[in-house]
């Protein structure tokens, strides 16, 4: 019973924290992570246009005070940048599979 109560409280707490409106600090942290990943991708000469757009959308939302949207866009940018880094890394060898021999 006690264990069930603790689990329920944990669940409520986690839901409450995710439901909390994002603030400027959340945005800055999310944006910094996205920007770092984006810089890494650009350094590998493999930046994606959608990463750049998502970063711009994050900045625009933050400028308008909509930090929920800004954080969501920054997280999307980070995910896209990480995907482009994965692509550039795997393609270092994978391109050979496509070569006409």
């Amino acid at each position, binding site marked *: 019973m006690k264990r069930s109560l603790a689990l329920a409280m944990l669940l409520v707490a986690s839901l409450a924290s995710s439901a909390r409106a994002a603030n400027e600090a959340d945005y800055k942290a999310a944006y910094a992570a996205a920007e770092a990943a984006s810089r890494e991708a*650009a350094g590998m*000469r*493999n*930046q*994606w*246009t*959608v990463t*750049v757009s998502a970063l711009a959308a994050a900045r625009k939302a933050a400028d308008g005070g909509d930090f929920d949207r800004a954080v969501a866009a920054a997280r999307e940018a980070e995910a*896209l940048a990480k*995907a*482009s880094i994965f*692509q*550039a890394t795997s*393609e270092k060898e*994978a*391109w*050979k599979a*496509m*070569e*006409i*021999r």
Partner: protein
Amino acid sequence: MKQRAAILLGSAFVALAALVLVATRVVAADKVDPVADAKAFQNFFFQKFPNVKHEDFVNGPYSMNEDMKRQWQEKEEFPPYEFALDAGKEMFATPFKNGKTYADCFPNGGIGIRQNYPYFDEKEGKVVTLELALNRCREANGEAPYSYVKDEMASLTAYMAYTSRGKPMEIKIPDDPRALAAYENGKRYFYTRRGQLNFSCASCHVQSPGERIRAETLAPALGILNAMPIYRSEWSGMGTTSRRFVTCNSQTRAVPLEPQSDEYRDVEYFLSYVANGLPISGPGARP
């Protein structure tokens, strides 16, 4: 006992020989061999499209579709690139402020030399494209360089290509490890997937020539640069090789590199080399 030792020794020798053979083959597979590459590249397209005349590959999508080819042939009577050709001819002959002209910068006065570009400059240790050479000519004569993706550059290269029409592409790779490295870098760029759509140049132009991507028929990679620069109806204007690379990258949702970056120069070197022997057909017209 002696027999056992002999068997063991014999087995070890056979294993060693096999290892040496395998290792040699692995090394051979990784060795840069442009001649073998070009042969394999051309054979791939010749076998994939046995009914297309070899010299026709330089006509891009028109070599893949008879209806389109007929429409294009009719259009060639009043080609849409004609205005660029006239402008290019005039620009080419007009002296710079110092009295010199483009002809002073190129072998044979710049006439009939398109098929030799890009080339590997052993002094610089890099690939030099025709677009780059034209801008270097301008700068050496005190003129501002042209944009690599706009009309002036397209007009100049259109005129120079026209003076080479029908001449076989003749790209050389000197016996210089830097030239081989540039060629290999271009090949890697051509086959490397990029952008959110995860496309390489080869995804469209090797795997799917003749197929449609939205409303367009994809051109084969073989001879794709022989027709440059091109008038594209989609652009309502002329486009340089640089513009083509930039647009291809954007279409896969990759941020394009700067025009005439090392990668673009190298991929132009690779694509031109594997098209050696096919005629220059530029300037071209495309849907």
